[in-house]
Protein backbone atom coordinates (compact mmCIF):
# COMPACT_ATOMS: atom_id res chain seq x y z
CA UNK A 1 0.00 0.00 0.00
CA UNK A 2 2.82 2.35 0.88
CA UNK A 3 4.50 1.90 -2.46
CA UNK A 4 1.17 2.56 -4.14
CA UNK A 5 0.72 5.89 -2.36
CA UNK A 6 4.36 6.83 -2.81
CA UNK A 7 3.78 6.61 -6.54
CA UNK A 8 1.80 9.82 -6.36
CA UNK A 9 4.85 11.65 -5.04
CA UNK A 10 6.47 11.13 -8.40
CA UNK A 11 5.78 13.99 -10.77
CA UNK A 12 5.74 11.88 -13.90
CA UNK A 13 3.30 9.43 -12.35
CA UNK A 14 0.97 12.25 -11.34
CA UNK A 15 1.26 13.55 -14.90
CA UNK A 16 0.41 10.13 -16.22
CA UNK A 17 -2.71 9.90 -14.03
CA UNK A 18 -3.75 13.37 -15.15
CA UNK A 19 -3.19 12.38 -18.78
CA UNK A 20 -5.31 9.26 -18.30
CA UNK A 21 -8.17 11.27 -16.81
CA UNK A 22 -8.02 13.96 -19.51
CA UNK A 23 -7.79 11.32 -22.21
CA UNK A 24 -10.94 9.68 -20.85
CA UNK A 25 -12.87 12.96 -21.01
CA UNK A 26 -11.93 13.91 -24.58
CA UNK A 27 -12.16 10.32 -25.86
CA UNK A 28 -15.43 9.73 -24.01
CA UNK A 29 -17.18 12.65 -25.71
CA UNK A 30 -15.60 12.51 -29.17
CA UNK A 31 -15.66 8.70 -29.22
CA UNK A 32 -19.42 8.69 -28.64
CA UNK A 33 -19.78 10.98 -31.66
CA UNK A 34 -17.50 8.73 -33.75
CA UNK A 35 -19.26 5.50 -32.79
CA UNK A 36 -22.76 6.93 -33.21
CA UNK A 37 -21.99 8.31 -36.66
CA UNK A 38 -20.06 5.17 -37.67
CA UNK A 39 -16.89 7.16 -38.31
CA UNK A 40 -14.45 4.57 -36.98
CA UNK A 41 -12.80 4.04 -40.36
CA UNK A 42 -12.40 7.80 -40.94
CA UNK A 43 -10.82 8.04 -37.51
CA UNK A 44 -8.43 5.22 -38.38
CA UNK A 45 -7.42 7.18 -41.47
CA UNK A 46 -6.79 10.37 -39.53
CA UNK A 47 -4.77 8.48 -36.91
CA UNK A 48 -2.41 6.91 -39.41
CA UNK A 49 -2.18 9.99 -41.62
CA UNK A 50 -0.86 11.93 -38.63
CA UNK A 51 2.22 9.68 -38.58
CA UNK A 52 3.47 11.69 -41.54
CA UNK A 53 3.67 14.74 -39.27
CA UNK A 54 5.54 12.77 -36.62
CA UNK A 55 8.18 11.73 -39.17
CA UNK A 56 8.59 15.28 -40.46
CA UNK A 57 8.85 16.57 -36.89
CA UNK A 58 11.68 14.10 -36.21
CA UNK A 59 13.53 15.02 -39.36
CA UNK A 60 13.36 18.78 -38.97
CA UNK A 61 13.80 18.67 -35.24
CA UNK A 62 10.49 20.15 -34.02
CA UNK A 63 7.94 18.53 -31.76
CA UNK A 64 6.48 15.48 -33.51
CA UNK A 65 3.12 16.16 -31.84
CA UNK A 66 2.91 19.54 -33.55
CA UNK A 67 3.65 17.88 -36.89
CA UNK A 68 1.03 15.23 -36.16
CA UNK A 69 -1.55 17.89 -35.28
CA UNK A 70 -0.98 19.52 -38.68
CA UNK A 71 -1.20 16.26 -40.59
CA UNK A 72 -4.16 14.98 -38.60
CA UNK A 73 -6.30 18.11 -38.94
CA UNK A 74 -5.44 18.61 -42.63
CA UNK A 75 -6.25 15.02 -43.53
CA UNK A 76 -9.48 15.19 -41.52
CA UNK A 77 -10.60 18.31 -43.37
CA UNK A 78 -9.43 16.72 -46.63
CA UNK A 79 -11.50 13.58 -46.07
CA UNK A 80 -14.57 15.64 -45.16
CA UNK A 81 -14.19 17.89 -48.20
CA UNK A 82 -13.34 15.20 -50.76
CA UNK A 83 -16.12 12.87 -49.72
CA UNK A 84 -18.79 15.59 -49.84
CA UNK A 85 -17.78 17.80 -52.72
CA UNK A 86 -16.16 15.44 -55.16
CA UNK A 87 -17.14 12.21 -56.83
CA UNK A 88 -14.42 10.16 -55.13
CA UNK A 89 -15.58 7.37 -52.83
CA UNK A 90 -15.16 8.29 -49.21
CA UNK A 91 -13.52 5.03 -48.15
CA UNK A 92 -11.01 5.24 -51.01
CA UNK A 93 -10.04 8.78 -49.95
CA UNK A 94 -9.53 7.51 -46.41
CA UNK A 95 -7.35 4.63 -47.58
CA UNK A 96 -5.20 6.94 -49.71
CA UNK A 97 -4.61 9.50 -46.93
CA UNK A 98 -4.10 6.68 -44.41
CA UNK A 99 -1.24 5.14 -46.40
CA UNK A 100 0.16 8.44 -47.70
CA UNK A 101 0.60 9.65 -44.13
CA UNK A 102 2.25 6.41 -43.05
CA UNK A 103 4.56 6.45 -46.10
CA UNK A 104 5.60 10.06 -45.44
CA UNK A 105 6.30 9.22 -41.83
CA UNK A 106 8.34 6.14 -42.65
CA UNK A 107 10.47 8.01 -45.22
CA UNK A 108 11.30 10.88 -42.89
CA UNK A 109 11.99 8.64 -39.90
CA UNK A 110 14.29 6.59 -42.13
CA UNK A 111 16.10 9.75 -43.32
CA UNK A 112 16.58 11.04 -39.77
CA UNK A 113 20.11 10.17 -38.64
CA UNK A 114 20.52 8.02 -35.53
CA UNK A 115 18.08 5.74 -33.75
CA UNK A 116 14.75 7.27 -32.79
CA UNK A 117 14.28 5.80 -29.34
CA UNK A 118 11.03 7.68 -28.82
CA UNK A 119 9.46 6.37 -31.99
CA UNK A 120 8.12 3.31 -30.23
CA UNK A 121 6.20 5.49 -27.82
CA UNK A 122 4.40 7.15 -30.73
CA UNK A 123 3.48 3.82 -32.24
CA UNK A 124 2.45 2.05 -29.06
CA UNK A 125 2.03 4.90 -26.60
CA UNK A 126 3.71 5.62 -23.31
CA UNK A 127 1.60 7.54 -20.88
CA UNK A 128 4.50 7.71 -18.40
CA UNK A 129 6.55 9.90 -20.71
CA UNK A 130 3.77 12.29 -21.61
CA UNK A 131 5.28 15.79 -21.93
CA UNK A 132 4.15 18.95 -20.14
CA UNK A 133 3.23 20.43 -23.52
CA UNK A 134 1.12 17.42 -24.42
CA UNK A 135 -0.57 17.53 -21.02
CA UNK A 136 -1.45 21.19 -21.38
CA UNK A 137 -2.76 20.60 -24.88
CA UNK A 138 -4.88 17.71 -23.58
CA UNK A 139 -6.32 19.98 -20.91
CA UNK A 140 -7.16 22.70 -23.44
CA UNK A 141 -8.68 20.10 -25.76
CA UNK A 142 -10.85 18.60 -23.03
CA UNK A 143 -12.16 22.04 -22.09
CA UNK A 144 -12.75 22.91 -25.76
CA UNK A 145 -14.68 19.69 -26.39
CA UNK A 146 -16.77 20.18 -23.25
CA UNK A 147 -17.61 23.79 -24.19
CA UNK A 148 -18.54 22.88 -27.78
CA UNK A 149 -20.81 20.06 -26.64
CA UNK A 150 -22.39 22.17 -23.90
CA UNK A 151 -23.20 24.96 -26.34
CA UNK A 152 -24.24 23.01 -29.41
CA UNK A 153 -25.29 19.61 -28.09
CA UNK A 154 -28.73 19.45 -29.71
CA UNK A 155 -27.52 20.78 -33.05
CA UNK A 156 -24.66 18.26 -33.11
CA UNK A 157 -27.10 15.49 -32.21
CA UNK A 158 -29.64 16.46 -34.88
CA UNK A 159 -27.02 16.81 -37.62
CA UNK A 160 -25.35 13.53 -36.66
CA UNK A 161 -28.63 11.63 -36.64
CA UNK A 162 -30.04 12.85 -39.94
CA UNK A 163 -27.84 15.07 -42.09
CA UNK A 164 -30.37 15.10 -44.90
CA UNK A 165 -33.15 16.47 -42.72
CA UNK A 166 -30.78 18.92 -41.03
CA UNK A 167 -29.85 20.31 -44.44
CA UNK A 168 -33.49 20.59 -45.40
CA UNK A 169 -34.25 22.77 -42.38
CA UNK A 170 -31.12 24.85 -43.02
CA UNK A 171 -29.08 23.82 -40.01
CA UNK A 172 -25.38 24.70 -40.42
CA UNK A 173 -24.54 21.11 -41.41
CA UNK A 174 -21.19 21.83 -43.08
CA UNK A 175 -20.01 23.98 -40.19
CA UNK A 176 -20.92 21.27 -37.68
CA UNK A 177 -19.22 18.57 -39.75
CA UNK A 178 -15.98 20.53 -40.21
CA UNK A 179 -15.86 21.60 -36.57
CA UNK A 180 -16.45 18.09 -35.31
CA UNK A 181 -14.01 16.38 -37.69
CA UNK A 182 -11.37 18.89 -36.51
CA UNK A 183 -12.12 17.99 -32.90
CA UNK A 184 -11.89 14.30 -33.84
CA UNK A 185 -8.44 14.88 -35.36
CA UNK A 186 -7.22 16.90 -32.34
CA UNK A 187 -8.51 14.26 -29.94
CA UNK A 188 -6.83 11.45 -31.82
CA UNK A 189 -3.45 13.18 -32.16
CA UNK A 190 -3.26 14.43 -28.58
CA UNK A 191 -4.11 10.98 -27.28
CA UNK A 192 -1.45 9.26 -29.38
CA UNK A 193 0.98 9.70 -26.47
CA UNK A 194 -1.41 7.77 -24.25
CA UNK A 195 -2.11 4.72 -26.38
CA UNK A 196 -0.04 5.08 -29.54
CA UNK A 197 -1.03 5.35 -33.19
CA UNK A 198 -1.84 1.70 -33.46
CA UNK A 199 -4.01 1.54 -30.34
CA UNK A 200 -5.52 5.00 -29.86
CA UNK A 201 -8.68 4.12 -31.77
CA UNK A 202 -9.65 1.69 -29.04
CA UNK A 203 -9.80 4.56 -26.49
CA UNK A 204 -12.45 6.08 -28.73
CA UNK A 205 -14.48 2.92 -29.28
CA UNK A 206 -14.22 0.35 -26.48
CA UNK A 207 -15.63 2.59 -23.69
CA UNK A 208 -18.50 3.54 -26.02
CA UNK A 209 -19.20 -0.08 -26.89
CA UNK A 210 -19.35 -0.89 -23.17
CA UNK A 211 -21.61 2.11 -22.52
CA UNK A 212 -23.83 1.13 -25.43
CA UNK A 213 -24.56 -2.19 -23.69
CA UNK A 214 -26.36 -0.29 -20.95
CA UNK A 215 -27.78 2.79 -22.65
CA UNK A 216 -29.12 4.05 -25.96
CA UNK A 217 -29.03 7.67 -24.91
CA UNK A 218 -26.32 9.85 -26.47
CA UNK A 219 -25.74 11.89 -23.32
CA UNK A 220 -25.66 8.91 -20.95
CA UNK A 221 -23.35 7.15 -23.38
CA UNK A 222 -20.90 10.05 -23.09
CA UNK A 223 -20.88 9.94 -19.28
CA UNK A 224 -20.61 6.15 -19.10
CA UNK A 225 -17.79 6.19 -21.67
CA UNK A 226 -15.85 8.76 -19.67
CA UNK A 227 -16.31 6.69 -16.53
CA UNK A 228 -15.24 3.38 -18.10
CA UNK A 229 -12.38 5.18 -19.82
CA UNK A 230 -11.17 6.51 -16.48
CA UNK A 231 -11.39 3.14 -14.76
CA UNK A 232 -9.73 1.36 -17.67
CA UNK A 233 -6.90 3.83 -18.16
CA UNK A 234 -6.13 4.18 -14.47
CA UNK A 235 -6.10 0.42 -13.93
CA UNK A 236 -4.07 -0.03 -17.10
CA UNK A 237 -1.60 2.59 -15.94
CA UNK A 238 -1.05 0.73 -12.64
CA UNK A 239 -0.71 -2.57 -14.44
CA UNK A 240 1.80 -1.07 -16.83
CA UNK A 241 3.81 0.37 -13.91
CA UNK A 242 3.95 -2.76 -11.81
CA UNK A 243 4.51 -5.23 -14.65
CA UNK A 244 6.70 -2.82 -16.62
CA UNK A 245 4.73 -3.26 -19.85
CA UNK A 246 3.63 -0.58 -22.38
CA UNK A 247 0.79 1.54 -20.95
CA UNK A 248 -1.31 1.68 -24.13
CA UNK A 249 -1.51 -2.09 -24.37
CA UNK A 250 -2.24 -2.44 -20.65
CA UNK A 251 -5.10 0.08 -20.83
CA UNK A 252 -6.69 -1.64 -23.78
CA UNK A 253 -6.31 -5.01 -22.09
CA UNK A 254 -8.23 -3.64 -19.11
CA UNK A 255 -10.94 -2.03 -21.23
CA UNK A 256 -11.59 -5.28 -23.07
CA UNK A 257 -11.71 -7.05 -19.71
CA UNK A 258 -14.39 -4.60 -18.54
CA UNK A 259 -16.28 -5.19 -21.77
CA UNK A 260 -16.25 -8.97 -21.26
CA UNK A 261 -17.36 -8.60 -17.63
CA UNK A 262 -20.18 -6.27 -18.67
CA UNK A 263 -21.34 -8.76 -21.27
CA UNK A 264 -21.38 -11.59 -18.74
CA UNK A 265 -23.33 -9.47 -16.22
CA UNK A 266 -25.83 -8.51 -18.91
CA UNK A 267 -26.18 -12.12 -20.06
CA UNK A 268 -26.89 -13.29 -16.50
CA UNK A 269 -29.46 -10.54 -16.05
CA UNK A 270 -31.20 -11.48 -19.28
CA UNK A 271 -31.35 -15.20 -18.47
CA UNK A 272 -32.68 -14.43 -14.97
CA UNK A 273 -35.37 -12.27 -16.54
CA UNK A 274 -36.34 -15.04 -18.95
CA UNK A 275 -36.46 -17.60 -16.14
CA UNK A 276 -38.67 -15.29 -14.12
CA UNK A 277 -41.01 -14.87 -17.04
CA UNK A 278 -41.28 -18.61 -17.59
CA UNK A 279 -41.71 -19.32 -13.89
CA UNK A 280 -42.97 -16.31 -11.88
CA UNK A 281 -42.17 -18.09 -8.59
CA UNK A 282 -38.56 -18.64 -9.57
CA UNK A 283 -37.18 -16.53 -6.75
CA UNK A 284 -39.12 -18.35 -4.00
Amino acid at each position, binding site marked *: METFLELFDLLFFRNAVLAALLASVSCGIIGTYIVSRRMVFISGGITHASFGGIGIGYFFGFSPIVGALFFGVLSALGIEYMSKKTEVREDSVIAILWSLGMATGIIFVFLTPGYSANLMSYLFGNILTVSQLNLRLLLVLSLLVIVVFLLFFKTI*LFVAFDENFARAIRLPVDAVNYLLITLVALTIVLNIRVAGIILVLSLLTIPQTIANLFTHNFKTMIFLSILTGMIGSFAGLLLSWFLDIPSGAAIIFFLVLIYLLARVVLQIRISLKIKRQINPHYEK
Partner: protein
Amino acid sequence: MEKLVELQQVTAGYADEVVLRNINLTVHAQDFIGVIGPNGGGKTTLVNVILGIIKPMSGNIIFHPDSSDRRRRFIGYLPQVSHTDKKFPISVRDVALSGLATSQRFMNHYSAGDNERVQQVLAQMGIEQLAGKNVGELSGGQLQRVFLCRAIIAQPRLLILDEPNTFVDNKFENDLYLILRELNKEMAILMVSHDVGTITYYVKSIACVNKTLHYHDSNIISQEQLASYNCPIQIITHGDVPHTVLRTHQQ
Protein backbone atom coordinates in the same frame (compact mmCIF):
# COMPACT_ATOMS: atom_id res chain seq x y z
CA MET B 1 -55.56 30.46 -54.75
CA GLU B 2 -52.50 31.48 -52.77
CA LYS B 3 -49.22 30.39 -54.32
CA LEU B 4 -46.52 28.85 -52.13
CA VAL B 5 -43.78 27.71 -54.48
CA GLU B 6 -43.27 28.25 -58.19
CA LEU B 7 -40.77 26.33 -60.27
CA GLN B 8 -40.14 27.96 -63.62
CA GLN B 9 -38.20 26.14 -66.33
CA VAL B 10 -36.05 24.41 -63.72
CA THR B 11 -33.26 22.12 -64.87
CA ALA B 12 -31.45 20.21 -62.14
CA GLY B 13 -29.22 17.22 -61.49
CA TYR B 14 -25.97 16.12 -59.90
CA ALA B 15 -22.45 16.95 -61.08
CA ASP B 16 -22.54 16.53 -64.86
CA GLU B 17 -25.78 14.57 -65.03
CA VAL B 18 -29.03 16.36 -65.79
CA VAL B 19 -31.94 14.57 -64.10
CA LEU B 20 -34.78 17.06 -64.54
CA ARG B 21 -35.27 19.21 -67.60
CA ASN B 22 -37.34 22.41 -67.86
CA ILE B 23 -39.77 21.64 -65.07
CA ASN B 24 -42.72 23.90 -64.33
CA LEU B 25 -44.77 23.42 -61.20
CA THR B 26 -46.79 25.66 -58.94
CA VAL B 27 -47.75 24.56 -55.46
CA HIS B 28 -50.76 26.32 -53.93
CA ALA B 29 -51.73 26.61 -50.29
CA GLN B 30 -54.39 23.89 -50.27
CA ASP B 31 -52.74 21.47 -52.72
CA PHE B 32 -52.28 17.75 -52.14
CA ILE B 33 -49.99 16.70 -54.97
CA GLY B 34 -48.92 13.10 -55.54
CA VAL B 35 -45.56 12.85 -57.30
CA ILE B 36 -45.24 9.62 -59.23
CA GLY B 37 -42.79 8.27 -61.76
CA PRO B 38 -40.22 5.53 -62.34
CA ASN B 39 -37.09 5.06 -60.21
CA GLY B 40 -34.34 7.36 -61.40
CA GLY B 41 -36.95 9.59 -63.06
CA GLY B 42 -36.13 12.50 -60.76
CA LYS B 43 -38.75 12.39 -58.00
CA THR B 44 -36.23 12.81 -55.19
CA THR B 45 -34.28 15.38 -57.23
CA LEU B 46 -37.46 17.43 -57.49
CA VAL B 47 -37.87 17.25 -53.71
CA ASN B 48 -34.23 18.22 -53.15
CA VAL B 49 -34.58 21.22 -55.44
CA ILE B 50 -37.66 22.49 -53.58
CA LEU B 51 -35.90 21.89 -50.25
CA GLY B 52 -32.87 23.83 -51.43
CA ILE B 53 -30.53 20.88 -50.85
CA ILE B 54 -29.45 21.10 -54.50
CA LYS B 55 -29.38 24.27 -56.56
CA PRO B 56 -31.02 24.27 -59.99
CA MET B 57 -28.64 24.43 -62.96
CA SER B 58 -31.02 26.84 -64.67
CA GLY B 59 -34.49 28.24 -64.17
CA ASN B 60 -36.10 29.88 -61.15
CA ILE B 61 -37.67 28.80 -57.93
CA ILE B 62 -39.86 31.40 -56.29
CA PHE B 63 -41.01 30.99 -52.72
CA HIS B 64 -43.91 32.98 -51.36
CA PRO B 65 -43.42 32.90 -47.61
CA ASP B 66 -46.33 34.16 -45.56
CA SER B 67 -45.28 37.15 -43.52
CA SER B 68 -48.41 37.05 -41.38
CA ASP B 69 -47.32 34.08 -39.29
CA ARG B 70 -43.57 33.96 -38.86
CA ARG B 71 -43.71 31.20 -36.32
CA ARG B 72 -44.74 28.66 -38.92
CA ARG B 73 -41.93 26.97 -40.81
CA PHE B 74 -42.21 27.23 -44.55
CA ILE B 75 -41.41 23.64 -45.46
CA GLY B 76 -41.72 20.47 -43.37
CA TYR B 77 -39.95 17.37 -44.64
CA LEU B 78 -40.19 13.62 -44.18
CA PRO B 79 -37.19 11.92 -45.81
CA GLN B 80 -37.04 8.33 -46.98
CA VAL B 81 -36.90 6.14 -43.90
CA SER B 82 -34.22 3.90 -45.41
CA HIS B 83 -31.69 6.71 -44.97
CA THR B 84 -31.81 6.67 -41.19
CA ASP B 85 -29.48 4.76 -38.91
CA LYS B 86 -31.73 2.86 -36.51
CA LYS B 87 -28.83 2.13 -34.17
CA PHE B 88 -28.20 5.81 -33.56
CA PRO B 89 -28.59 6.64 -29.85
CA ILE B 90 -31.41 9.19 -29.99
CA SER B 91 -34.82 9.23 -28.32
CA VAL B 92 -38.19 9.73 -29.98
CA ARG B 93 -38.59 12.96 -28.01
CA ASP B 94 -35.35 14.38 -29.42
CA VAL B 95 -36.18 13.37 -32.99
CA ALA B 96 -39.48 15.22 -32.76
CA LEU B 97 -37.77 18.20 -31.13
CA SER B 98 -35.28 18.42 -34.00
CA GLY B 99 -38.18 19.58 -36.17
CA LEU B 100 -38.13 22.84 -34.20
CA ALA B 101 -34.42 23.49 -34.86
CA THR B 102 -33.51 26.38 -37.14
CA SER B 103 -30.31 28.00 -38.29
CA GLN B 104 -30.96 30.89 -35.93
CA ARG B 105 -31.17 28.70 -32.85
CA PHE B 106 -28.18 26.39 -33.16
CA MET B 107 -27.31 27.00 -29.53
CA ASN B 108 -29.10 24.91 -26.95
CA HIS B 109 -32.10 26.86 -25.92
CA TYR B 110 -35.16 24.75 -26.12
CA SER B 111 -37.83 25.93 -23.73
CA ALA B 112 -40.48 24.20 -21.67
CA GLY B 113 -42.90 25.37 -24.36
CA ASP B 114 -40.93 23.45 -26.99
CA ASN B 115 -41.11 20.29 -24.88
CA GLU B 116 -44.83 20.80 -24.45
CA ARG B 117 -45.19 21.12 -28.20
CA VAL B 118 -43.31 17.81 -28.57
CA GLN B 119 -45.76 16.08 -26.21
CA GLN B 120 -48.66 17.64 -28.08
CA VAL B 121 -47.55 16.50 -31.52
CA LEU B 122 -46.63 13.00 -30.27
CA ALA B 123 -50.13 12.75 -28.79
CA GLN B 124 -51.61 13.93 -32.07
CA MET B 125 -49.93 10.97 -33.78
CA GLY B 126 -50.94 8.65 -30.96
CA ILE B 127 -47.39 7.82 -29.90
CA GLU B 128 -46.97 9.83 -26.68
CA GLN B 129 -46.15 6.61 -24.82
CA LEU B 130 -43.06 6.16 -27.04
CA ALA B 131 -41.49 9.51 -26.10
CA GLY B 132 -38.63 8.05 -24.07
CA LYS B 133 -37.88 5.15 -26.40
CA ASN B 134 -34.86 4.92 -28.64
CA VAL B 135 -35.49 4.98 -32.40
CA GLY B 136 -33.99 1.50 -32.63
CA GLU B 137 -36.85 0.04 -30.58
CA LEU B 138 -39.58 1.15 -32.99
CA SER B 139 -41.39 -0.63 -35.79
CA GLY B 140 -41.39 0.82 -39.30
CA GLY B 141 -44.81 2.39 -38.84
CA GLN B 142 -43.93 3.86 -35.46
CA LEU B 143 -40.73 5.34 -36.87
CA GLN B 144 -42.66 6.96 -39.71
CA ARG B 145 -45.05 8.49 -37.18
CA VAL B 146 -42.07 9.94 -35.31
CA PHE B 147 -40.69 11.39 -38.54
CA LEU B 148 -44.11 12.79 -39.35
CA CYS B 149 -44.11 14.48 -35.92
CA ARG B 150 -40.72 15.97 -36.71
CA ALA B 151 -41.99 17.19 -40.08
CA ILE B 152 -45.13 18.91 -38.80
CA ILE B 153 -44.08 20.11 -35.33
CA ALA B 154 -43.25 23.59 -36.66
CA GLN B 155 -46.60 23.75 -38.50
CA PRO B 156 -45.15 24.09 -42.00
CA ARG B 157 -47.05 25.70 -44.84
CA LEU B 158 -45.89 22.95 -47.17
CA LEU B 159 -45.31 19.36 -46.11
CA ILE B 160 -43.06 17.27 -48.36
CA LEU B 161 -43.10 13.49 -47.94
CA ASP B 162 -40.62 11.22 -49.73
CA GLU B 163 -41.98 7.67 -49.98
CA PRO B 164 -43.79 7.68 -46.63
CA ASN B 165 -45.41 4.32 -47.35
CA THR B 166 -42.31 2.15 -47.68
CA PHE B 167 -41.48 -0.37 -44.95
CA VAL B 168 -44.80 0.19 -43.20
CA ASP B 169 -47.75 -2.08 -42.59
CA ASN B 170 -51.14 -1.63 -44.24
CA LYS B 171 -52.73 -0.38 -41.06
CA PHE B 172 -50.26 2.45 -40.80
CA GLU B 173 -50.68 3.27 -44.45
CA ASN B 174 -54.41 3.76 -43.96
CA ASP B 175 -53.83 5.80 -40.81
CA LEU B 176 -51.25 7.87 -42.66
CA TYR B 177 -53.66 8.89 -45.38
CA LEU B 178 -56.31 9.84 -42.83
CA ILE B 179 -53.73 11.90 -40.92
CA LEU B 180 -52.58 13.59 -44.13
CA ARG B 181 -56.13 14.40 -45.16
CA GLU B 182 -56.57 16.11 -41.79
CA LEU B 183 -53.22 17.96 -42.08
CA ASN B 184 -54.12 19.09 -45.59
CA LYS B 185 -56.70 21.45 -44.06
CA GLU B 186 -53.82 23.49 -42.65
CA MET B 187 -50.97 22.90 -45.07
CA ALA B 188 -50.18 21.99 -48.66
CA ILE B 189 -48.81 18.48 -49.15
CA LEU B 190 -46.44 17.18 -51.79
CA MET B 191 -46.03 13.42 -51.56
CA VAL B 192 -43.62 11.27 -53.54
CA SER B 193 -44.70 7.67 -53.91
CA HIS B 194 -43.99 4.64 -56.01
CA ASP B 195 -47.31 3.07 -55.00
CA VAL B 196 -49.53 4.86 -57.46
CA GLY B 197 -52.63 2.79 -56.89
CA THR B 198 -53.05 3.83 -53.31
CA ILE B 199 -52.10 7.47 -53.49
CA THR B 200 -54.50 8.35 -56.25
CA TYR B 201 -57.35 7.91 -53.76
CA TYR B 202 -56.10 10.62 -51.51
CA VAL B 203 -54.31 13.23 -53.56
CA LYS B 204 -56.03 16.11 -55.33
CA SER B 205 -53.62 16.28 -58.24
CA ILE B 206 -50.80 14.25 -59.72
CA ALA B 207 -47.38 15.22 -61.04
CA CYS B 208 -45.74 12.55 -63.16
CA VAL B 209 -41.99 12.99 -63.11
CA ASN B 210 -39.78 11.28 -65.65
CA LYS B 211 -36.97 13.63 -66.67
CA THR B 212 -39.76 16.09 -67.43
CA LEU B 213 -42.87 16.85 -65.42
CA HIS B 214 -46.50 16.42 -66.42
CA TYR B 215 -49.02 17.99 -64.11
CA HIS B 216 -52.49 16.51 -63.99
CA ASP B 217 -55.09 18.47 -62.11
CA SER B 218 -57.11 15.50 -60.91
CA ASN B 219 -56.52 12.28 -59.04
CA ILE B 220 -57.66 9.98 -61.80
CA ILE B 221 -55.21 8.86 -64.42
CA SER B 222 -56.13 6.66 -67.29
CA GLN B 223 -53.97 4.39 -69.34
CA GLU B 224 -54.13 6.79 -72.28
CA GLN B 225 -52.95 9.68 -70.18
CA LEU B 226 -50.08 7.66 -68.79
CA ALA B 227 -49.08 6.66 -72.29
CA SER B 228 -49.09 10.25 -73.44
CA TYR B 229 -46.93 11.22 -70.45
CA ASN B 230 -44.36 8.66 -71.51
CA CYS B 231 -44.44 7.62 -67.89
CA PRO B 232 -43.59 3.97 -67.38
CA ILE B 233 -45.20 3.06 -64.09
CA GLN B 234 -47.16 0.23 -62.66
CA ILE B 235 -50.59 0.74 -61.22
CA ILE B 236 -51.96 -1.91 -58.94
CA THR B 237 -55.61 -1.04 -58.67
CA HIS B 238 -57.79 -1.31 -55.64
CA GLY B 239 -61.00 -0.99 -57.56
CA ASP B 240 -61.49 2.66 -58.36
CA VAL B 241 -58.53 3.26 -60.62
CA PRO B 242 -59.58 2.82 -64.24
CA HIS B 243 -56.84 0.55 -65.55
CA THR B 244 -53.86 -1.53 -64.63
CA VAL B 245 -51.01 -0.23 -66.64
CA LEU B 246 -47.55 -1.58 -67.20
CA ARG B 247 -45.50 0.46 -69.56
CA THR B 248 -41.90 0.07 -70.50
CA HIS B 249 -39.40 2.85 -70.97
CA GLN B 250 -39.83 4.46 -74.35
CA GLN B 251 -36.72 6.59 -74.34
